[in-house]
């Protein structure tokens, strides 16, 4: 078979270069135009749920713009509690359609509103601060729902490179950025190259974290799944135990300071906000959890937040009072748990219209 490539520099013709350039640059241009058009029309967001994933500031901005064009909307921010990861990891069927974000959106639909979730796995409070600042550069939502979790206050995530989960949000942070690295080439590509952005977004649909996980999923699809559920849960317990460190939470610590700036930012925009501490499954951690210390820390957090809200009732500590059967692990809920939590949160949302003067109805 003849090679499609020229046989050497001597035989390389201008015609080959012209053909190559026309095909490569033409396809690149067409793909770029298609991706920009598709993002502006929200085509991907209508057909796939990307809750739990954030690929960059520009893509998040496109989601914000799309949400604002659909009518009155609520911006939901939080960590993996909003998304499908834990449901997927626990092999729950229809995981993507039974997330907290999806349940919230369905609850909102009854009153003609929508919920855009920019919740993402592993997110921390400085990330939330960055997302609120990013949202401020786009169309304002009618309300903001902020869901906090114990991990966000864990000692290991308070400083240095561990203090921010998504480095592309650095430019949106007002606080001290010492110890954080500069955005890389991926951030620049994500900002300027729509094809890259959309490819990154779609990659989240089939991304598997490790080769081992990929093999495990393949074995499970053949009915050969390893029966090591107890081991998996024990490893998870070891991993999350430090999130519930009994040491007192410090109001001068970076997470609290980021929360202070975030709430000031929201208040400055006159946006109604509901802040909720997510449900926790104390029985999962057992003796690893110092319940009294955890409660004291949450009370300290509650006082800190209420002092910064227009209405103290707009902070809910939902950590306690949930049946253990509604949990998949320490904090992620089953589909039924997500339905119950969505219903509770939606009923508590301020339901007021954003007012540039900062006054609520």
């Amino acid at each position, binding site marked *: 078979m003849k090679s499609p490539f020229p046989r050497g520099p001597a035989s390389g013709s201008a*015609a080959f*270069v012209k053909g190559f350039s026309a*095909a490569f640059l033409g396809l690149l241009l067409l793909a770029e135009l298609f991706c920009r058009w598709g993002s502006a029309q929200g085509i991907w967001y209508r057909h796939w749920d990307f809750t739990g994933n954030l*690929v960059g500031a520009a893509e998040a901005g496109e989601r914000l713009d799309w949400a604002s064009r659909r009518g009155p909307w609520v911006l939901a921010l939080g960590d993996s509690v909003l998304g499908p990861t834990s449901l997927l990891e626990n092999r729950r069927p229809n995981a993507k359609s039974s997330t907290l974000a999806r349940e919230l959106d369905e609850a909102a639909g009854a009153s003609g509103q929508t919920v855009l979730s920019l919740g993402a796995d592993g997110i921390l409070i400085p990330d939330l601060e960055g997302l609120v600042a990013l949202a401020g550069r786009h169309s304002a939502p009618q309300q903001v729902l902020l869901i906090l979790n114990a991990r966000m206050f864990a000692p290991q995530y308070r400083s240095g490179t561990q203090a921010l989960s998504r480095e592309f949000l650095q430019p949106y942070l007002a606080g001290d950025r010492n110890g954080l690295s500069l955005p890389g080439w991926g951030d620049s590509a994500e900002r300027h190259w729509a094809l890259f952005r959309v490819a990154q977004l779609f990659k989240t649909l089939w991304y598997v974290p490790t080769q081992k996980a990929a093999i495990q999923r393949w074995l499970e699809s053949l009915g050969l799944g390893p029966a090591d559920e107890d081991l998996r849960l024990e490893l998870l317990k070891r991993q999350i135990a430090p999130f519930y460190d009994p040491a007192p939470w410090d109001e001068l610590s970076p997470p609290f300071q980021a929360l202070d700036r975030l709430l000031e930012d929201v208040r400055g925009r006159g946006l109604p906000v509901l802040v909720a501490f997510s449900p926790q499954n104390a029985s999962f951690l057992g003796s690893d959890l110092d319940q009294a210390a955890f409660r004291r820390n949450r009370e300290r957090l509650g006082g800190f937040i209420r002092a910064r809200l227009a209405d103290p009732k707009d902070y809910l500590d939902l950590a306690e009072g949930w049946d253990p059967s509604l949990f998949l692990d320490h904090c992620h809920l089953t589909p039924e748990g997500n339905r119950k939590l969505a219903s509770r949160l939606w009923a508590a949302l301020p339901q007021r219209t954003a007012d540039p003067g900062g006054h609520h109805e």
Partner: protein
Amino acid sequence: MNDFKRGLLSGAALFLMILVILLFAGALSASKFIYVDF
């Protein structure tokens, strides 16, 4: 096949290769903790 057509095929092949790399290669660049500390 003339040189222009060879060029077209090569350009299209390179584009498809880049597309496959973008869609399937590497980790998610923006996510430090994804699936790890959820």
